[in-house]
């Protein structure tokens, strides 16, 4: 098992500048905030004060005996169990903490030094109680690098980031390295774009570096539009300075003096934290007119997206920043040659940039030493859907799908979150551009090329686990509806093709499809892939094509047997009354909104299929469970 770098910091933090000071760290990511983390924070402040502890909110060089530092951190990734509270150096992680729990934590942990057992995490698989991160299966199997400081550092405190070595890589890049050397080091590291395509970052930079232009731009792509992915949000919220540092190194590498961070508008907290981080960096003289005293200028603007999935595509994002409709343009020319306002521009994903400082500091070899030869380094995945532990997981490339989906996840659950034995059906990887993989792929190592071979892709790293109660045709329809809605309309095949694919899927789901439908779906899907300009259209049919490939039987059941094995496709339901169970009480007759049920009292009733709208009211009303097939 890989060593967990994040734990080292959490366990002993001599380099914080406050040796030995005890810390209470509250997760203040979107998930924990929604669950009331701020109330918990305020309560801590009050209770600690009353217990005679000295609450320290700012970083200080000296610490007194009764000092306890109370701070917020970014997303710690274990969103489902939030609000999370870590106590350092005790190595305790409390989950689902409510304000009412705070007095007990203060009294028993902060004053007496013992753990409050009922607030510790209990592994649903083994029922074992986990005191901290090392024995928590969700964290212990991860290799957190990009996420390393998320969950520990206060994202709103630039000093703390700097005390942890923050901005040292940017400093090195500006003072000791030539742009050529930076590009070389990044190329040698083998870093590939974390946003989906997996294009070698070094090559992209080099292409922009060799352009002779007075003005160049770097854009950080934080327009994380894939439904089911939230790693960029977490990094921007949890460690915004690491993104800025990566951005600065990129700017130095290509010779740009203006950078942009394009953040999705649905992430107000990320926008706020990025803005604050930029302002703080300017105040510290890191960004601005005289970067590290070199006399070089570097500006950074945080821009808010306006809600268009296609803007995650490079050329569409450029159009959006220029104030136009976010529609892609053909490549070449590549943005590295002619991008924003016609100038050489590089666009990198948040996670890609967050890897850069470490590569500069630790070298290309160290980065290459983890992951696979073709896909070096770690990747963050958003593990969601029908699993016990949803959240962010960072693992080396090459990790088996099984380890993530069945082990770190804590197992597959039913719709109510209860563990479900043999419940695994599929995992949807890579969002609307990705594909659905099955049990047979669980031993596949996660990497760019291995996934592409089976018709899926790493994408931005969304992993949605689906249980046996999920209808795969409906799942394909869900993604198709999304891409159809988000198609910008420029390419005919994407605009009209996705609409027709959606209509064909509706035919399958509503029982109108025939033997020709599947062929048509496949043919049209391939046509849309070929006939679209940008990644959105090129990958839009993937969910349909991959489910057709691995779950063809389910499509056929819908078409030929007019049956959905999960019972989720309403139009295919055939409610019938079981004559043996029915006592003829008449409750269902009263409940039916369309008058489809008839029958004499005390004799079995009957549903008229012509009138029935399959609403299921009769099944809910019947106390004897005599209505079947709903």
């Amino acid at each position: 098992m890989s060593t967990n770098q994040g734990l080292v910091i959490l366990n002993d933090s001599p380099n914080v500048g406050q040796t030995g000071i005890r810390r209470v760290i509250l997760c203040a990511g979107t998930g924990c905030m929604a669950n009331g983390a701020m109330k918990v924070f305020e309560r801590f402040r009050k209770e600690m004060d009353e217990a005679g502890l000295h609450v320290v909110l700012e970083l200080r060089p000296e610490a007194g005996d009764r000092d306890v530092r109370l701070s917020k951190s970014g997303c710690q990734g274990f969103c489902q169990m939030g609000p999370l509270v870590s106590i350092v150096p005790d190595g305790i992680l409390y989950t689902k903490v409510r304000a009412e729990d705070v007095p007990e934590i203060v009294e028993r942990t902060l004053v007496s030094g013992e753990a409050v057992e009922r607030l510790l995490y209990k592994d649903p698989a083994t029922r074992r109680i986990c005191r901290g991160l090392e024995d928590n299966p969700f964290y212990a199997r991860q290799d957190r690098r990009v996420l390393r400081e998320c969950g520990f550092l206060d994202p709103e405190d630039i000093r703390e980031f700097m005390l942890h070595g923050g901005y040292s890589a940017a400093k090195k890049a500006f003072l000791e390295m030539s742009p050529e050397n930076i590009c070389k080091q990044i190329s040698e590291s083998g870093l590939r774009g974390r946003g989906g395509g997996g294009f070698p970052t070094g090559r992209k930079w080099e292409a922009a570096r060799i352009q002779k232009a007075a003005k160049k731009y770097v854009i950080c792509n934080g327009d994380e539009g894939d439904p089911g992915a939230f790693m960029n949000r977490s990094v921007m919220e949890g460690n915004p300075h690491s993104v800025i540092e990566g951005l600065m190194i990129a700017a130095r590498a290509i010779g740009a003096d203006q950078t942009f961070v394009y953040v999705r508008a649905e992430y107000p907290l990320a926008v706020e934290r990025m803005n604050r981080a930029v302002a703080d960096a300017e105040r510290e003289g890191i960004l601005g007119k005289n970067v590290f005293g070199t006399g070089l200028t570097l500006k950074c603007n945080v821009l808010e997206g306006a809600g268009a999935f296609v803007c995650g595509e490079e050329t569409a994002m450029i159009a959006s920043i220029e104030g136009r409709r976010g529609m892609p343009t053909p490549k070449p020319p590549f943005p590295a040659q002619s991008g924003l306002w016609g100038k050489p521009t590089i666009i990198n994903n948040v996670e890609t940039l967050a890897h850069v400082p470490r590569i500069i500091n630790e070298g290309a070899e160290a980065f290459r030493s983890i992951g696979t030869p073709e896909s070096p380094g770690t990747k963050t995945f958003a593990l969601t859907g029908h699993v016990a532990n949803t959240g962010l997981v960072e693992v080396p490339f090459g990790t088996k799908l099984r380890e993530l989906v069945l082990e770190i996840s804590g197992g597959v659950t039913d719709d109510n979150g209860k563990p479900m034995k043999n419940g695994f059906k599929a995992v949807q990887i890579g969002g609307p551009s990705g594909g659905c993989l099955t049990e047979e792929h669980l031993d596949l190592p996660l990497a760019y090329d291995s996934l592409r071979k089976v018709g899926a892709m790493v994408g931005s790293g969304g992993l949605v686990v689906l249980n046996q109660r999920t209808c795969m045709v409906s799942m394909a329809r869900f993604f198709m509806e999304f891409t159809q809605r988000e198609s910008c309309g420029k390419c005919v095949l994407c605009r009209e093709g996705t609409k027709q694919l959606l209509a064909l899927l509706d035919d399958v789901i509503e029982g109108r499809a025939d033997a020709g439908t599947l062929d048509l779906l496949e043919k049209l899907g391939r046509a849309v892939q070929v006939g679209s300009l940008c990644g959105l259209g090129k990958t839009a049919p993937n969910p349909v094509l991959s489910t057709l490939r691995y779950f063809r039987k389910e499509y056929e059941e819908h078409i030929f047997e007019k049956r959905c094995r999960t019972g989720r496709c309403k139009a295919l339901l055939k409610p019938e009354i079981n004559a043996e169970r029915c006592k003829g009480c008449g409750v269902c007759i009263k409940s039916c909104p369309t008058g489809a049920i008839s029958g004499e009292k005390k004799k079995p009733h009957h549903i008229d299929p012509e009138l029935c709208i399959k609403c299921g009211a009769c099944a809910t009303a019947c106390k004897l469970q005599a209505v079947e097939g709903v």
Partner: protein
Amino acid sequence: MATAHLAVDRAEKFRTVCGILDRHGYRPSGLIPILQAIQREYQYLPEEVLTFVATSLDLPPARVFGVATFYAHFALEQKGKHVIRICDGTACHVKQSLPILSAIHAELGTSEKQKTSNDALFTVETVACLGACGLAPVLVVDEQVYGGMTPERAVALVNEIKTQENAGDAQAAAAAVNGELHVH
């Protein structure tokens, strides 16, 4: 009298818009941030304001309308007092977010077509992903995120807001009555 009021309103409206345009230096490339700032001010983009922005930036009105209709965040119609956004991202979807949407629609008398309730108190929207997948299914009322939703809890939440609003109205009415009494 009413016309004079309207004229004052209008002057006020354009003064705010001019302030926003000033801050962005009348640059056409700043169109999206400008529209975002205007929407923050009015909760939507009134048509006459769009025309005014086009003229001020020396852009064809079609270009401004084109941008305003392209991006999902821009609303050309007034929204209700509270905006309820139900997340239908993948994680929320597989955890049954659509029954929550139906329950809210049924409770408020809204629908896919009519997004704002008749009393203009609520606008119901779906959103592709809020990035709070760990809490799925999620809904957001104004800026507050609610996780682990069920149709029942969602309806209860909506009714709670309704009750608060009615109480607020009653209070406001009571205050108005008291005010009158004081004047007398």
